[in-house]
């Protein structure tokens, strides 16, 4: 994958810089801006060159401090959520689990799914462990301090927030619904959305695992 990186990264950056000059000069040619932005090889959103490589320091579900480097060598999927979530998170996790089944046992060995809880007040390591046990062994729960979570979400231009507590102390959490996919070198490759077709995700993950 390393040797392929420049191929993905360079055609994207050049039109951007070009477009900036245009826009600042005269607001013309904005349509040019987005042409050639999507690599035809991927079916989900290509973010290589747009997002930085995977980096974080968080606490995993056994309470150990863990850094992103620990996952180099495997392709990684990064998803933000919270265990009290009852729509987007469990649906996404179950969907990923079933997609991994389709990919087969070999693929599963080379892929890690990192579930980052943005609700550390309710999600301690034990809660996370219990939660990820519902899914395959490649699912790992992570969380961290507010600063650690802010650093990671900011890095990928996403955010999260908390709603008002109700009488029972429950509250809603807003969190990104995107799944970020990184290659074996930790380079950002794809952004997978909720409404991406299953076949598209399967095909892209195959391609991601085949490289490098």
């Amino acid at each position, binding site marked *: 994958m390393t040797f392929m990186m420049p191929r993905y990264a360079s055609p994207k950056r050049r039109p*951007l*810089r070009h477009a900036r000059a245009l826009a600042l000069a005269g607001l013309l040619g904005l349509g040019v801006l987005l042409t050639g932005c999507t690599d035809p090889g991927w079916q989900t959103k290509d973010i290589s060159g747009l997002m930085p490589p995977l980096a974080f320091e968080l606490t995993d579900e056994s309470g150990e401090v863990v850094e992103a480097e620990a996952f180099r060598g495997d392709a990684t999927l990064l998803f933000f959520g919270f265990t009290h979530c009852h729509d987007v998170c469990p649906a996404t996790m179950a969907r990923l689990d079933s997609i991994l089944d389709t990919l087969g046992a070999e693929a599963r060995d080379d892929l890690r799914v990192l579930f980052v809880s943005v609700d550390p007040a309710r999600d301690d390591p034990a809660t996370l462990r219990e939660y990820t046990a519902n899914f395959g062994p490649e699912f790992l729960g992570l969380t961290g301090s507010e600063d650690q979570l802010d650093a990671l979400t900011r890095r990928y231009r*996403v*955010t999260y*927030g908390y709603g008002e507590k109700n009488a029972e102390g429950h509250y809603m*959490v807003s969190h990104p619904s995107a799944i970020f996919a990184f290659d074996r070198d930790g380079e950002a490759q794809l952004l997978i959305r909720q409404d991406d077709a299953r076949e598209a995700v399967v095909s892209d993950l195959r391609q991601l695992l085949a490289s490098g």
Partner: protein
Amino acid sequence: MLEFERTLGVLLPWEFSPSWIAACLLAAGLYLRGLQRHRHQGRTVGFWRPFAFLLGVGAVYAVTQTHYDYLSQYMFFTHRAQHLALHHAAPFLIALAAPLPVLAAGVPSRLHHPPGRAAIVGILRPAYRLLQHPAMAPLLFVGLIYFWLIPEIHFDAMLSRELYQIMNWSMLLDGLLFWFLVLDPRTPQQGGLGYGMRILALLVVIPPQILLGAYLTFSENVLFDVYAVCGRAWPLSPLTDQQLGGLITWIPASMMSVAGVLIVIRSILSGKGDTHLGEPEQERGVPQP
């Protein structure tokens, strides 16, 4: 102490961007310097024009280089309010202040004739003429609002830091072009656009904005998934977010045109007043022909 840190956090930029800070400081600095020069020369500018100008520049700064920028990146309706400021309210105030003579007075005299000035003017003038053509300006004004709200383009613009900056800059620059055209303090005889054309330009941009705002407000589907994909600043229902954004695109945006028309009408009326009553220009608070 905690309170202080929190206040500071709100006032500091979410994403430090030198271009916005430099542009705002330069505009305010030149203007204040120009004001001082004017005062030395015994020319009065009054209170309202400097107030409008500095308020406009301050608004640009506030929506781009404070924590407000965070909200406009992670919520649709706050994003629409940011564009309302950048494309409508702030450039409206800046143009209303008719600041060019004051800004020119603020430019250090050794910079009045920079090398290559003729070449730059030669290149920019035809482009400026084209953009300020009475048929082009309203098209660009509305077209840009629509362009950045094409869902796929909106997605990329909110995701990429570079595109986001291009989007916001394009909105401000186009806003300045449009409002400087329709609120031009020069009379048609002095080279300003005819008053009828100004009113027409202001009116013709209303229906497309109403259409777009109403479409966003009444749509039953979430049109912009980027806020779900990247997470919202707080858990607000996506449709509520979109409806609020639609209302902002619809009502205050169109009202700005109405305000513009009233000012043009006032220009027409007081233009007549000039010839009949010989009212001295400096005594009036709003830009006049």
